[in-house]
């Protein structure tokens, strides 16, 4: 399972490195969205705003949706699904591999956007560094859930519009938990227990994905 996961993750990351969609399209889009969020708050409120963690996760949500869609588009290229089926790869491994690749892509975007939050929204640097572990784990949870929801909508009618409809309600608790742990790191909320929600989500989505991804693949 883990060998297959590593192979799939390497394949997805190699495609991403060659196409540079993340670097030239998704990250600039995220940076622009963060800038617009600051503009929406206004010059008087954008700096040191308690909304910083929330805006970071809101932008991360948009970035995640783009990356999940992208992760499924890779699989939709002619012959990919057929070759995966012919090779008889373990579906649990495929799920973990795709989630791992998506996690790494989200981490890269997350680090850039976190730096952007410190730079543009003046979020305290030490708070952002303290929040880093919770951000990384929340992004793993988003990647695991996103891989599942991406597979659910893949190839369906209006898949790109259906994906946010299915993902947003499922991501809401994760984003709230992520934002609260970020705020806790900044000292504006004493709610480290929000970590528990994120960890439970990682286990739940990981477990469901390992068990049921095969059903989605065979369909």
């Amino acid at each position, binding site marked *: 399972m883990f060998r297959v996961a590593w192979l799939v993750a390497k394949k997805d990351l190699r495609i991403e490195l060659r196409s540079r969609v993340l670097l030239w399209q998704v990250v600039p889009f995220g940076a622009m969205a963060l800038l617009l969020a600051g503009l929406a708050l206004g010059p008087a409120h954008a700096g040191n705003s308690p909304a910083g963690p929330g805006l970071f996760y809101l932008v991360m949500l948009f970035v995640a949706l783009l990356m999940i869609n992208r992760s499924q588009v890779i699989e939709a290229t002619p012959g990919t699904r057929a070759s995966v089926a012919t090779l008889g790869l373990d579906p649990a491994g495929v799920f973990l591999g795709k989630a791992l690749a998506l996690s790494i892509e989200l981490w890269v975007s997350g680090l850039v956007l976190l730096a952007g939050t410190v730079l543009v929204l003046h979020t305290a640097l030490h708070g952002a560094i303290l929040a880093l572990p919770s951000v990384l784990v929340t992004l793993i949870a988003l990647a695991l859930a996103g891989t599942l929801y991406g597979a*659910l909508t893949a190839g369906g*009618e209006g898949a790109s519009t*259906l994906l946010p409809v*299915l993902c947003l309600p499922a991501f809401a608790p994760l984003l709230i938990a992520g934002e609260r742990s970020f705020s806790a790191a900044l000292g504006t909320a004493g709610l480290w227990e929000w970590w528990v929600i994120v960890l439970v989500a990682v286990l739940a989505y990981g477990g469901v994905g390992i068990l049921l991804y095969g059903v989605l693949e065979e369909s």
Partner: protein
Amino acid sequence: MIKQLSQRLLGPVTLVLLVATIWLGLWVTPPDKIQGNLVRLLYVHPAIAWVALYVSFGTATIASALFLWRRTRSWVMDRVAHCAMEVSVVFIILTLITGSIWGRPTWGVWWAWDARLTSTAILGVLALGYLALRRANDDPTLRAKRSAVFAILSAINVPIIHFSVQWWKTLHQGATVFTSSRTLLVHGSMAWTLLISFVGFTLLFFWLLRARYRLEVERETNQRAALEQALIARQREGAL
């Protein structure tokens, strides 16, 4: 014989229990010491929420799991899951509406960013997402498998809603019928009205589910007949 009788009696019994709930709730039970007549809405709201979260969403989730399990896989399970989810959407909307009507005079607002309210609204969007997902796939097997996985994933939200009043500081009250040690907190006519309301709305769910299921079977039969007719017409065109 028993099956036929229970099917025939389901509608009338449901109607009697719902009428009894209205009668007891509006005329027999006394007004609450603090809430006054507003308490009468609580004979309906918890029962509707019970059906929305546990009975209908639970039925949809169990039927989905049974569809995914190869041993119990059948189109009946897929239909039950689909129909239960549709009924669930109706009951979730009713839960939010009745809660909102109660919330306005009690909390002063129609909507509050409360953990119980927000998580219930999220469940409603998930249920709508399930119906959207079904419409997005034409292949019946693909549609059934994907929507079954989605229903199971969405069910993760149900325990969050249930425990939200314990996990977070919420405006929404905690358990009011039973304490955590299973001691009954409601007595007399109020308790009976609540019990009748819970049974009545649960039966209403099963009545609606049965009606919707029959409609679905009818729709599928008509669809197959229309397809066969179209094929015959094409064959005739080819023969000419």
